[in-house]
């Protein structure tokens, strides 16, 4: 702003306003004062004249009474001496006694305010009688002069006062308010805040509003400078980034463009042309096409995306196929984002590579990576499409086979996954070799395969193919120079005879395979409806079993074990029974396999342990602390479910000596995981528990096992005992077992002793511990005492 011209200066303006207002008010006041003064002066004059008459009234009264002209004249002359009196007339009745007046007079008689003063004169001796009158002519000129003098004097006084007051006020206001403001204004005008200058504090105003104003202005200026510097820094930064983004924009490998709502391209970067495989154009001009006019395979999609993006005001993305001139297809990922004002920003990227990778991945999803066969998903797809084909063109149906390599898991465990993988590959090869191209082979998991055979309609053809497969897999596998023999089991289901949807067919094939597996002679089994019924029964049984677990539906039965030598009971084997609400007591053979499969065996085992301990405690209280009790342990319980710690803790809780509890295991249990089983056994024996090897003679019964698994006792399987009276081979076998056990310093318990002959034979073979129906069948707890008493009361000579 320019310098303030002097006539606009606040100093001059303030002074002019203060003086002007003061003068106007003062003039009004003075005029009023003068008027009042004039009136007062006139009133005083009139009063003075009236008083003048008062002083001479008595004399005038006498003069009039006696019509004494000389006296009247004398009085009149005396009155005329007063400067304010111009003329006097004294009259007695009609006779004028005296008339005097000033000669130098040209009076204006029309002044109402200065009318002559007339008074009636009464007789000195009778107040009622009027004897004359006196009239005073006021000296108008004189009075007016007097008034003028008075008013002039007062006027002058007031004007002087006014000047003094106004002058003082103007001076003070200018000095204390206006001048500091003007100084501030001038200072502010010249101030260069950016150079760090600040406004000086006007002297004497440190604590006034002006001082605060100066502080605030300085503070404001300082903040403004800071803000400006920040703004400048931001601008610089923005320019820098703008350049950076410009470079990115120009050199980006992705196409960037902005379009309006019609798809008209308003700006774009060079990469867009590479991406769209168009001849290069110089940037910034109209590229000559719209987003929709490009050769998209999904030609309506870009327009739809633009509309949707604008409608929802949110970004849209999709992959589009761009048809190139050379006939190839390029996948373009298009992202549209609204940027306001009906405009969109588009980013285009070449995603052909990703699309190819995705397709490859999709392929992988249905392929088993190891063998290159289909996986489960691939099989299900093939199965679905096969069913679909069959429904559309009903033919003679097809077969679905499920195949499991027998012993594969054992080899995998024993020889490592490398060997397992090689076997799987070889098996896959063999399978593919003996099938047609139209057949589908899939690997499901582990050593399990599935075969979809569209041409194998009917059991005959399916059997032929099954035979062929079994044959080819029966050849030994040469893996890393070691010949391995594997077999396989096959379950076969036929469509549409057995079912018409993938889940049913797959389940059927699985059930048939399970049956074949259970038969365990490397063959194939066709699905039939009984399999489904069995499966259903199993399902029901499983539910009941869970219920039984929750409701304590199990009971322990006890079969006494007898010392033949001393003719007394030494212990008992605890045998579990399921007290089924509908079916009555169920033997363990009918539900333990299921419990093992479902894992419920673990809870059942714990329950059995607790119950056994309770029984031992009862014996202990009854004075039969010498008796021991054996419980059967399943492979699933080793090593974690029925851990040595758990057993020891339970026994300790009941206050039972560990030597009173015997754990019976079978050879098969030990073979599942050799190292863990060894450790489990050793720990328990260290804790003082005894281990019995159950069903000895039926399995491998190898001497080396007995050496690797340190047990206390072997129990000879009841099948040998039963037949040893009639069969010499069995007798020899029993004898051998007993001899062997003795040489290994193991004790022997004979199971299934049913007759006196059995007992006699065993005694001859020096086996003195036995159990069996000869002594007692397994009995519930309440009958145990009676059974034991009966056994011990049996005649010695019988044994």
């Amino acid at each position, binding site marked *: 702003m320019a310098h303030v011209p002097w006539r606009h200066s606040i100093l001059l303006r303030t002074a002019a306003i203060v003086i002007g207002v003061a003068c106007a008010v003062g003039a009004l006041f003075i005029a009023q004062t003068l008027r009042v003064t004039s009136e007062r002066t006139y009133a005083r004059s009139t009063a003075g004249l009236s008083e003048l008459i008062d002083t001479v009234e008595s004399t005038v009264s*006498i003069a009039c009474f006696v019509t004494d002209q000389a006296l009247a004249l004398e009085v009149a002359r005396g009155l005329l001496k007063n400067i304010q009196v111009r003329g006097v007339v004294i009259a007695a009745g009609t006779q004028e006694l005296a008339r005097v007046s000033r000669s130098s007079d040209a009076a204006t008689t029309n002044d109402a305010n200065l009318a002559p003063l007339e008074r009636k004169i009464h007789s000195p*001796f009778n107040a009622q009688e009027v004897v004359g009158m006196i009239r005073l002519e006021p000296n108008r000129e004189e009075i007016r002069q007097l008034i003028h003098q008075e008013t002039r004097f007062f006027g002058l006084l007031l004007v002087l006062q006014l000047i003094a007051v106004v002058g003082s006020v103007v001076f003070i206001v200018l000095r204390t308010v206006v001048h500091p403001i003007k100084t501030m204004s001038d200072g502010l005008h010249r101030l260069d805040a950016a150079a760090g200058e600040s406004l000086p504090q006007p002297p004497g105003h440190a604590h006034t509003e002006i001082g605060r104003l100066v502080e605030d202005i300085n503070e404001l200026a300082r903040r403004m400078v800071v803000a400006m510097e920040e703004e400048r820094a931001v601008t610089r930064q923005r320019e820098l980034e703008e350049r950076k983004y410009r470079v990115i924009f120009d050199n980006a490998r992705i196409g960037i463009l902005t379009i309006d709502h019609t798809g008209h391209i308003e700006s774009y970067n060079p990469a867009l042309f590479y991406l769209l495989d168009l001849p290069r154009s110089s940037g910034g001009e109209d590229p000559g096409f719209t987003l929709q006019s490009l050769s998209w395979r999904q030609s309506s999609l870009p327009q739809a995306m633009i509309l949707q993006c604008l409608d929802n005001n949110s970004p849209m993305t999709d992959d589009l196929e761009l048809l190139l001139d050379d006939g190839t297809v390029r996948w373009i990922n298009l992202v549209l984002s609204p940027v306001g004002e009906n405009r969109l920003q588009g980013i285009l990227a070449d995603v052909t590579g990703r699309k190819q990778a995705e397709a490859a991945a999709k392929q992988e999803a249905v392929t088993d990576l190891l063998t290159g066969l289909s996986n489960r998903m691939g099989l299900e797809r093939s199965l679905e499409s096969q069913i679909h084909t069959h429904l559309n063109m009903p033919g003679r149906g097809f077969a679905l086979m499920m195949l499991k390599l027998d012993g594969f898991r054992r080899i995998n465990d024993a020889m490592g996954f490398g060997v397992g993988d090689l076997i799987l590959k070889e098996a896959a090869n063999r399978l593919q070799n003996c099938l047609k191209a139209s057949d589908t082979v899939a690997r499901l998991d582990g050593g399990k395969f599935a075969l979809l055979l569209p041409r194998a309609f009917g059991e005959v053809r399916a059997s032929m193919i099954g035979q062929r497969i079994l044959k080819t897999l029966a050849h030994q596998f040469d893996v890393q120079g070691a010949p391995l023999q594997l077999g396989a089991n096959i379950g076969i289901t036929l469509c549409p005879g057995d079912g018409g949807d993938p889940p049913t067919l797959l389940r059927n094939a699985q059930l048939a395979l399970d049956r074949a597996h259970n038969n365990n002679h490397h063959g194939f089994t066709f699905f039939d409806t009984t399999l489904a019924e069995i499966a259903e029964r199993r399902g029901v049984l499983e539910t009941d079993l869970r219920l039984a677990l929750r409701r304590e539906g199990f009971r322990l039965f006890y079969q006494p074990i007898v010392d033949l030598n001393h003719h007394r009971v030494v212990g008992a084997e605890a045998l579990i029974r399921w007290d089924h609400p509908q079916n009555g007591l169920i033997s363990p053979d009918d539900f333990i396999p299921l419990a093992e499969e479902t894992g419920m065996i673990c809870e059942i085992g714990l329950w059995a342990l607790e119950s056994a301990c309770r029984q031992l405690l009862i014996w202990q209280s009854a004075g039969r602390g010498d008796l021991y009790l054996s419980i059967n342990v399943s492979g699933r319980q080793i090593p974690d479910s029925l851990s040595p710690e758990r057993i020891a803790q339970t026994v300790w809780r009941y206050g039972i000596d560990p030597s009173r509890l015997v754990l019976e295991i079978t050879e098969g249990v030990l073979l599942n995981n050799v190292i863990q089983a060894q450790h489990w056994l050793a720990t328990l024996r260290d804790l003082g528990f005894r281990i019995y090897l159950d069903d000895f003679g039926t399995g491998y019964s190898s001497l080396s096992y007995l050496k690797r698994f340190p047990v206390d006792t072997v129990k000879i399987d009841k099948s040998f005992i039963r037949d040893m009276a009639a069969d010499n081979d069995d007798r020899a076998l029993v004898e051998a077992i007993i001899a062997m056990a003795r040489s290994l310093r193991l004790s022997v318990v004979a199971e299934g002793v049913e007759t006196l002959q059995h007992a006699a034979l065993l005694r001859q073979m020096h086996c003195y511990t036995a159990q069996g129906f000869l002594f007692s069948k397994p009995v519930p707890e309440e009958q145990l005492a009676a059974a034991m008493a009966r056994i011990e009361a049996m005649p010695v000579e019988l044994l």
Partner: protein
Amino acid sequence: MKPFLSSLIWVLLNWPSLLYAGGPLVVVIHPGSSVETLSREEVINIFLGRYRQLPSGLLAQPVDQPAGQKASFYKLLVGKELPEINAYWSRLVFSGKTKPPQQARDLAEVIQWVNSLPGAIGYMEADQVDSRVKVALKLN
């Protein structure tokens, strides 16, 4: 008590004079005058120098009694004390137009004055009147 007593004593002592002062005064004229009666106004005008003329046209020549009766007379006539009357005359004397009444030394002189001048006019107590004078006005 004391002021009351003193005022009572004053009244008793002055009783005769008070009685006297309040007694009837009469204005008398020459016995042979054609004028029979005078009004109070005429008496005032004559004695206070306004008109020195009797109704008959004769120049009136008033005479004053000595101080005692003079005061009573003026008191009765115009209600003024003697000093006031004196002051009145002193102002008129200045112009010389009129003069105060003739001052007699005693009653005899008054009687003689009235009896000897046809325009004479005087005053006295009613019981002092004799044939040498004629009563023109009774003052109460």
